[in-house]
């Protein structure tokens, strides 16, 4: 659990702190705080990783897979696992700050809301990416999929798709933090929004899992994913002040 001590408040004056710190450092401080808090308790990553494994297990019963269908549904299945496990993780991002009124302290701290948001998003990104890599390894073993053939490009798609999940998840995590049905609301809210991003990621991963590089006909999917990330990162950074502070 985060404590007020983790916050970037020192006995130096606010102005000194600001001028020395700079935006990037504030983002880094928030990120480091979140990662530290999470790695100490491990509550979100444990739950999320376990959930990903359980879904991977269930999918093997849901579809009786022969190698051909396996290849066809592999990427869709994988991204659904990421999306499900991701919401579990992202739910905790702001909810973690509720005990001891840490959220109020964070908002009151001399950190702009956008830095707070980006720091949290980056921490979530690191955690989610780690869980995705773990699922990918387990997936490769259980489902006999050779995912390392186009390793570099797959990592690029994974990086972009995960950022889309993270940015939407973090902003909606902030949105739903004070709502009673938080755990249910987050997935209901973010999945429709994520339709374009998930679709792009699934299409690209499908290509890469089949061992083909991203061809000229699939580049537009990459652009779509990139565009989604750029637009929503920008809009979220602008609007997060209204969400957190008002």
């Amino acid at each position, binding site marked *: 659990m985060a404590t007020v001590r983790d916050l970037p408040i020192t006995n130096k004056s606010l102005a000194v702190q600001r001028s020395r710190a700079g935006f990037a450092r504030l983002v880094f401080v928030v990120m480091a705080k979140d990662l530290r808090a999470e790695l100490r308790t491990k509550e979100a990553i444990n739950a999320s990783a376990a959930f990903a494994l359980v879904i991977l297990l269930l999918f093997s019963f849901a579809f009786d897979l022969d190698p051909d269908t396996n290849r066809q549904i592999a990427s869709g299945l994988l991204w659904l696992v990421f999306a499900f496990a991701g919401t579990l993780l992202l739910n905790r991002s702001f909810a973690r700050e509720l005990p001891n009124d840490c959220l109020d302290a964070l908002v009151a701290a001399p950190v702009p809301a956008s830095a707070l948001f980006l720091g949290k998003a980056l921490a979530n990104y690191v955690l989610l990416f780690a869980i995705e890599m773990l699922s990918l390894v387990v997936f490769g073993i259980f489902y006999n999929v050779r995912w390392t053939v186009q390793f570099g490009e797959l990592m690029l798609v994974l990086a972009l798709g995960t950022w889309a999940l993270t940015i939407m998840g973090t*902003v909606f995590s902030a*949105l*739903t933090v*004070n*709502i*009673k*049905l938080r755990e249910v*609301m987050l997935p*209901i*809210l973010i999945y*429709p*929004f994520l*339709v*374009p991003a998930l*679709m*792009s990621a699934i*299409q690209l991963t499908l290509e890469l899992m089949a061992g083909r590089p991203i061809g000229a*006909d699939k580049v*537009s*999917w990459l652009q*779509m994913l990139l*565009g*989604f990330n750029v*637009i*929503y990162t920008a*809009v979220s950074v602008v*609007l997060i002040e*209204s*969400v957190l502070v*008002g």
Partner: protein
Amino acid sequence: MKKMRNTIIYVLAIAATLILGIDIYRIAGLPEEQAQGAIFKIIFFHVPLAIAGFACASVAFVSSILFLVKKDFKYDALAVSVTEVGLAFLAGNLITGSIWARIIWGIWWTWDVRLTSALVCWILYASYMMIRHAVEEPTQRARLAAVVSIFAFIDVPIVYFSIRLFRTQHPAPVFFSSTGSFPPDWSFIVFCNLMALFMLGAIFTMIRLRQEETQRELDSLRRLAHAF
């Protein structure tokens, strides 16, 4: 002010009813289309419903931004009213489309570009309503709902382009290709219907706005009563 608004509502209601009545009479008198028979006439409502729904979304987007900038609750009331009306229009659009598809394609639904994006759009705005119901504190509710509304409006074109990218690579087997042109006097009926729907939308929005205002008044009275 209230009286004036009532007059506007009545005038608009009469005008909308008149236009719709005349339109329905004219549509009933039109000949049947060669390939589709009578069912093609659903287009006179189907298309205007979609346009009116999108117009509502645009108004909701603008008033959500205005709320975040000015923090005036009348914009929040406008946003929720117009979103509800838009949801009803879009639902009408989806339902009329489905009825048409059942008769012409033989299926209720296909994952075509327009159908899918219209459905995703509907779900996005439904989630706007959900978040409104989930948050109780009015200021917070208005703020969060405005943010969701802005996000939703931005998502609609992205969804449309992404699904177009997806489905043009895998064309649906039951795709209706219409090569016939639409006569200009028929387009005029579509335009009249659109105007009537806009009026209807304005009426519903104004009635809904009044409910929101009354609700706010009730809330503040209740708070006042609790204060003593």
